[in-house]
């Protein structure tokens, strides 16, 4: 049974991470190519605190705050940059994070951090907590979509300038999205550390940032159910595709391309096309 539990936990952590990016890219329209950095910050914070004797649950808030703090700093920097430079700037932040962490002996440098103490919840307990966190973040996402914050995010994603003329403090909303998204990424990082019991700088590099972005885009940018399904599927794809073995990255890259080429709206886009929801009177897309 351990294998299934470990798989479900991996899924739950991936869903948490994808939903956290969905807040930034899905709701607010800001493309981030360096989101794994914030998971990394949460992961390293939890690892260092864990090894210093902190109980697992106590490391969660600290991981979130640290990741959120850097998220706001990156958010402030990204406000100064033109839209198409934002993607590359966040990518740059990703490389800086990996480049710096690798050099710090205190963070285990190239050898990474290992022998992280056990979370003490037992395999099933840990999985249950991870699933609980997923449900919480999903509920938060749906709530935000229903709230005025969600509507403002939608407006910013579509046309920032018009929102400014409607009196919206666009930079502050972007920062709010960055803060929420990055702190939740930090949370998923803490779970990642205790699930894998070994972390290295390259586990939070460019490939991971692209993977999580693909999950959001695959599910359908901004669509909470879509992102949850896509994250759950894509996170275990490599394990399931073991039978394909040699070709799994080929399949992964190919799927990404085909989805973007034929249904940029992702799975949610496909679903909307086949079972169109009622015309837009109430809130926006579910």
């Amino acid at each position: 049974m351990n294998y299934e539990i470990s798989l479900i936990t991996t899924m739950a952590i991936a869903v948490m991470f994808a939903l956290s990016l969905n807040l930034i890219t899905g709701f607010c329209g800001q493309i981030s190519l360096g989101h794994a950095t914030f998971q990394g910050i949460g992961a390293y914070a939890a690892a260092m605190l864990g090894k210093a004797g902190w109980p697992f649950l106590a490391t969660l808030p600290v991981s979130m705050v640290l990741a959120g703090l850097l998220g706001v700093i990156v958010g402030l920097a990204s406000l100064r940059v033109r839209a198409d430079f934002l993607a590359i700037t966040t990518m740059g932040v990703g490389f800086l994070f990996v480049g710096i962490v690798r050099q710090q002996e205190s963070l285990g440098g190239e050898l990474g951090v290992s022998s992280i103490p056990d979370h003490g919840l037992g395999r099933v307990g840990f999985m249950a907590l991870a699933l609980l966190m997923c449900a919480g973040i999903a509920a938060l996402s749906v709530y935000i979509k229903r709230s005025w914050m969600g509507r403002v995010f939608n407006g910013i994603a579509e046309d920032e300038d018009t929102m400014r003329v409607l009196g919206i403090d666009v930079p502050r909303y972007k920062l709010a999205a960055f803060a929420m998204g990055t702190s939740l990424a930090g949370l998923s990082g803490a779970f990642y550390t205790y699930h894998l019991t070994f972390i290295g700088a390259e586990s939070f590099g460019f490939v991971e940032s692209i993977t999580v972005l693909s999950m959001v885009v695959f599910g359908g940018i901004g669509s909470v159910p879509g992102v949850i399904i896509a994250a759950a599927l894509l996170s275990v794809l490599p394990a399931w595709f073991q039978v394909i073995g040699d070709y799994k990255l080929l399949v992964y890259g190919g799927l990404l391309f085909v989805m973007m080429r034929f249904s940029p709206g992702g799975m949610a886009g496909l679903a909307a096309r086949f079972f169109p929801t009622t015309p837009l009177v109430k809130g926006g897309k579910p």
Partner: protein
Amino acid sequence: MKFRTARFSLMTVAAAVALSTSPAWAQLKMGFNVPLTGFAAADGKSALDGAKLAVEQANAKGGVAGQKIELVVYDDQAVAKEAVPSATKMVDRDKVVVAVSGSYSGSTRAAASIFQNAKIPYVVAYAIHPDITLAGDYMFRVSSMGEVQGRGGAKLVQNLGKKRTVLITVKNDFGQALAAGFRDAAPKLGINIVNEYEYAMPDRQFGALVSKVKSDNPEVIYASGYFFNAGPLVSQLRAAGITVPIIGQEGYDSDKFIEIAGPASEGTLITTSLDRDSTEPATRAFLADYRKATNAGADMVAASSYTAVSVAIEGLRKTGGKGGAALRDAIAAGSYDTPIGKLVFNDLNEVKKDIQVQIVKDKAFRRHSVISDPVLLAPPTKAK
């Protein structure tokens, strides 16, 4: 009982290949994690070929206690994030009786704790990180650790009568362990480390580094890396007019290194575990069998994977196919005559063996010397 390699004729090997594919007999499952994709795919291929050869040879001789050995292979891309699910699956779903690592330290360290908790012996081929054997008593390693090889490299510098050394280290756990060993032994051997530089795994262009090393004008260069970065590094060092000896390690140990560095590779020394000119029957047989099976030259990765699988199989022979603690003790107690030397495990399940120094002479690795300093090359023991 010493493990001796029987003579193989072409016919037996062919028969073995036919037999092992038909799962007529009950299967003894051996897990094998190896990087088939990603940056380490090249080493992964050699490791897999070495492991398959050992399994085929064993099955050709009737397997173990009437059962065939089935190699259950998982691609871990040499990263921890892939190794954990693979290891968990080997333990839970495939119920492997023993596991072997043909991968790098990152993934092997992550898998080690899973096999230790499941009480499944895990024989590690060429991953050299110290934490692996510290994970517990079910962990075994058939190659010498990074620090030991680093100390061996320092001894070689002393044997060459050189003092002023420049260290160029590939930035991963392999490179850093080697550098640590070298730094530890250098003062004792009167070696003066002039300067140390680091470079990243994906680097292939070393223009700036080479210029700086030239300005240090050392007497010898101790540079760690794998064939895909050491090859270009050595050729660029020579192209810039640096003629001092260059000492590499088992990462260079592949024909690809000679192919890439071309004429610049002549005279490069490496500390490794596979001696191409060995007179040992085990090594000679392995080199011949490997070339027959893959028509390519064997490298250190293939040799150590072959050895790790053979050690696991030898343990299974003693326990009649039973795993767990019995297998652990059987493996720990054995002594093995393998292509990479005579192996005896100490209480930390590390091996103490000599270091083979090879030199590239007219496009091939040839024997240069052997370093066997029992004190300097002693692996760590449990007490440490």
